[in-house]
């Protein structure tokens, strides 16, 4: 029976004291610093679940508890969405020679496979630029990798897991997103893996708060656009998300969920819309014949939406002053396409651009109404729709600022779509 080397680790290292990246505070930090083991593993290890370790505990005890409650490698967090599977993988870099020796071959091979490649199969991609290096997680130091592949390639992924005998590692695979439910039986039958299913919104919030808290050097995790209404001076600026609450969190995946977050554990889903990233790509595929998000975005960047949309000035010749509507505002998305001549004169690029603008502005508009109804001034946009999509981010920044007369601030996070997966990983390391 194969086992994970770290279960045999006896020599404690004061890993806790040497994090390269410190969380801002323990309170905000949902990782393993709040060592309150009460998962089944620790219970079976003979520890009383009621034994609470406070910050006054000695380091020795702490290291012990961390070590004992630490799950075996490999550490994965997975988020199976409607369009993409997001996978985060923690690669330990502090492996001792002894560990190295004891590490089973399967584990080694997975680690090598994931860290030595940046693309997997035809569609799997590791977002190298997002990698978090020298991260201390649960007493171990290493790199956090961010990998994604289309949900429709999940069978291939499972096949690979089977080939690499993933199940022999006896790891718990923490998964969130709808696919954790939908594909649970496939994981079992195809790869002999048991999923630990987690709520996607819980994971999302946990992930956002964690990633924001560990990023202290390098590019800031959170950023905004300065002068959003002035295209010439609109620049990306870092933002420190201190005292983040209350916060409106808008997750734009295939669809959109809007959450009002009052604390890590106190949040509600305000509403959602089915007009999301999936709609953008779906419509673009139908309208332009493209087949990938990147392709659709590329087209959009070259198009002109004003040929497709009917603007206020197209109807009123200028501003509609009676109602304070500027002439450049879109009066009717795709409104010009009611006319046959105009349908024949637009390019695919124009159509892609109009689709992007329509979906983005609609999300902006619903978000703004939610912010007003919930009386929240800060909005954080996440989700893979925003990946390499500066166009949409700037549009959102503009819309928030313009229509609220500067009251609302649009914030963005570098790890856009990975927070659910990070949340799932955190759940593995420290069950809430």
């Amino acid at each position, binding site marked *: 029976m194969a086992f994970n080397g770290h279960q045999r680790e006896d020599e404690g290292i004061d890993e806790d004291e040497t994090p390269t990246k410190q969380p801002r505070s323990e309170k905000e930090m949902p990782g393993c610093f709040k060592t309150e083991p009460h998962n089944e593993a620790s219970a079976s290890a003979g520890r009383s679940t009621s034994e609470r370790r406070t910050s006054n505990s000695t380091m020795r005890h702490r290291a012990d508890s961390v070590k004992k409650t630490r799950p075996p490698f490999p550490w994965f967090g997975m988020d199976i969405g409607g369009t993409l599977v997001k996978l985060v993988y923690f690669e330990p870099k502090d492996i001792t020679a002894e560990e190295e020796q004891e590490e089973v071959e399967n584990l080694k091979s997975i680690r090598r496979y994931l860290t030595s490649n940046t693309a997997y199969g035809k569609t799997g991609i590791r977002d190298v630029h997002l990698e978090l290096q020298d991260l201390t997680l649960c007493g171990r130091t290493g790199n956090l990798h961010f990998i994604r592949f289309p949900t429709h390639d999940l069978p291939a992924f499972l096949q690979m897991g089977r080939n690499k005998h993933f199940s022999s590692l006896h790891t718990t695979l923490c998964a969130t997103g709808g696919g954790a439910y939908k594909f649970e039986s496939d994981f079992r039958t195809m790869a002999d893996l048991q999923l630990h299913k987690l709520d996607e919104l819980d994971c999302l919030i946990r992930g956002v708060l964690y990633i924001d808290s560990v990023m202290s050097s390098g590019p800031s995790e959170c950023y905004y656009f300065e002068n959003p209404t002035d295209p010439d001076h609109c620049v990306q600026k870092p933002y420190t998300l201190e005292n983040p609450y209350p916060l409106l969190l808008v997750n734009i995946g295939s669809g959109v969920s809007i959450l009002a977050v009052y604390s890590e554990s106190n949040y509600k889903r305000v509403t959602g819309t089915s*007009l999301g990233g999936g*709609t953008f790509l779906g419509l673009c595929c139908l309208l332009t014949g493209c087949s990938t998000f990147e392709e659709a975005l590329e087209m959009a960047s070259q198009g002109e939406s004003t040929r497709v949309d009917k603007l206020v000035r197209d109807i009123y010749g200028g501003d509609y002053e009676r109602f304070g509507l500027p002439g450049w505002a879109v009066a009717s998305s795709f*409104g010009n396409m009611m006319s046959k001549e105009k349908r024949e004169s637009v390019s695919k690029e124009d159509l892609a651009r109009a689709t992007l603008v329509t979906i983005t502005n609609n999300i902006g*508009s619903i978000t703004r109404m939610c912010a007003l109804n919930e009386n929240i001034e800060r909005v954080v946009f996440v989700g893979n729709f925003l990946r390499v999509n500066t166009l949409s981010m700037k549009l959102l920044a503009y819309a928030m600022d313009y229509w609220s007369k500067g009251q609302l601030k649009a914030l963005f996070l570098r790890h856009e779509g990975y927070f659910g997966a990070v949340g799932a990983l955190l759940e593995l390391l420290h069950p809430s």
Partner: protein
Amino acid sequence: MDKSITLPPDEIFRNLENAKRFAIDIGGSLTKLAYYSTVQHKVAKVRSFDKATKEAASDKLYEISVQEEVTARLHFIKFENAYIETCLDFIKDHLVNTETKVIKATGGGAHKFKELIERKLGLKVDKEDEMTCLIKGCNFVLRNIPHEAFVYAKHADSEFRFQTTQPDIFPYLLVNIGSGVSIVKVESEDKFERIGGSSIGGGTFWGLGALLTKTKRFDELLQLASKGQHTSVDMLVKDIYGGSYGSLGLTGDLIASSFGKSATADKEFSKEDMAKSLLHMISNDIGQLACLYAKLHNLSRVYFGGFFIRGHPVTMHTITYSINFFTKGEVQALFLRHEGYLGAIGAFLKGAEEDNPNQYSWGENYAGSSGLMSVSPDMNPMQRARSGTFDMLEMDRLERQLVNLPLLQDPSSYIPDTMDLTEDALAREYWLYCFEEALDGVVKRAVASQPDMPEAAERAEKFRQKYRHKLQTLRHQPFAYGSLTVRSLLDTREHCLNEFNFPDPYSKIKQNENDIALKYYQKAVKSLEELSWEERQFALVRGVLAGNVFDWGAKAVSDVLESDPEFGFEQAKRQLEGSKCLKTTHPGFLLQGPPHKCALFFVDNSGVDIILGVIPFVRELLSRGTEVVLASNSGPALNDVTNGELQILTERIAAMDPVIQAGLREDRLTLVQSGSSSPCLDLSRLDKVLAQVVRERQTDLVIIEGMGRAIHTNYYAMLSCESLKMAVIKNSWLADRLGGKLFSVVFKYEVPAGKPSQGSAAVTPS
């Protein structure tokens, strides 16, 4: 331009000779024309013979004359833009008497057709702001047209559930879905604000739909959508989760991502499925935004309009679904019967501001209006051949302003009609049959009422055709004029009779009845006075009820009266003798306690009913020290006594009866008109003067008499003071429904909760 069409002038652009104040609203595909005209029509007048000529005249009680009267009417006509040139030509040719110099114009197409209109009509086009017109029009229909707003329920017995007119229509939210969406908050007649909107609207459905399906027309796109399956294009919650997302209460069938499946699959999608998915996407999005705005501004009345909605059950359904979903049923999506006319109405009102049309009340003319869905091909297979795509709305200016009876317990929940035939299919069938059966008799009566006019028979025939057509329409579209009720069927008949200049087919009968009954008056009063107090109370009630048998509107009675002209009061009393009382209270309750301050009495028929039944009862009230307000119809309806007739009758009675004379002289007996010309009674639309008198006199008792006023309507009406509803059921089907026999009696005395059961002068109506 289609010049080949021939317009049926008498049916569409009516009364053009006197037309003035034109307004036009030109939309993307439909034009709405509005104008004001005066209609000359015959009205029946009664007049006492001059003292001097009395001897010379016949032995008749009063003089009946038919006079020409001029009333104001608003015409609204909707037609396809293709006909605009033909229509303008037609108007030019028929416009004679107008001093009009300008035409108010609104709508997106007003600009495009400006030159054409100015050239054709020689009128200067004066553009009005679209949104302002829309709101003005909306306020106007909400205030003046009962059952204007409705809730749409696709799978219910009746798809259209009409709302009762609210005493205060403000505040409300109007979501106008044109090519884009405007969301307007309306707080008062002049105060409104565009609080938001969206660029995803009808133009998005149309434009994007045309791109996706290569289908050009909006209607065709909707047709496609109604046949499609969105689940093959949309990514549902269950496509992601395999089932529902339980912890959030999101069911598996919810759309997680619109068009989400068209991004991953390499397959072809059907036009129908894509159109359906698009329809859901847009409807849900608009519904969601509307809800967010309604919540932010704390508004619960949300009306939807614009070409996306207009007459399309498909979009009304998807919007309703969306609103229900996003507000969990707390807000209802409301639609308007005359939504397509709002802009034209508003533009017209802008032009007519100097006449201050809002100071009047207006009423929908059922004879001249097409009704809901008249031009919707899928709703009306038996399309009228001649006026196919023309839809009309006509509104008559009422002579007086109509308001709520101040004594209604809850004006906002008051529903006049006892039975909603839109929802009750069995009852609908029965009553439509009844009215159809009675048509011959009405035609005969109409002809007989105008013996000196040779063309009366021809007009009566036209009336027959028109009314029969209305009945046929209502059989297929019972929702055409709002909730179908016995009252609306009766009113429609009156409107059609007026249309063909039969203002008062029963004038002669009424005259005769009144004449005969007057002869018995003194005898009747004398015999009542001889009775003991207790006996007299019973006799008075019996008298009112027996009098109420004399109703030409009821077939069971008119047959008897027709065959036995000698049928009299005593026989009627005997008829009631053995009958069961369906709803009764000891009349002593009513007249035992301290006298009421003032009684308001809504009267019914002429002749025996009013003279031998009602007046003696009134006399008793007066003797007890109770003031009496007699409310009778302003205009004729069947053999109901009109205010004009009642004036003469009371004068004649006063001459014989000192009690009545004193009552009139001391102003303790007052005659007022109800403001209505219907055999039924809508307590939310009464003459303003009546409401004022009721308030001034601190009315604490309301008596409603007759089948039309107390059973077909107001049977369940709740008043804030004591009330008495009295009627004889002269229809066996209805008697059966209410659990009795023909000529059963309803005597319903009600005291509002929390009030002492006897009249009290201290009651102050609010």
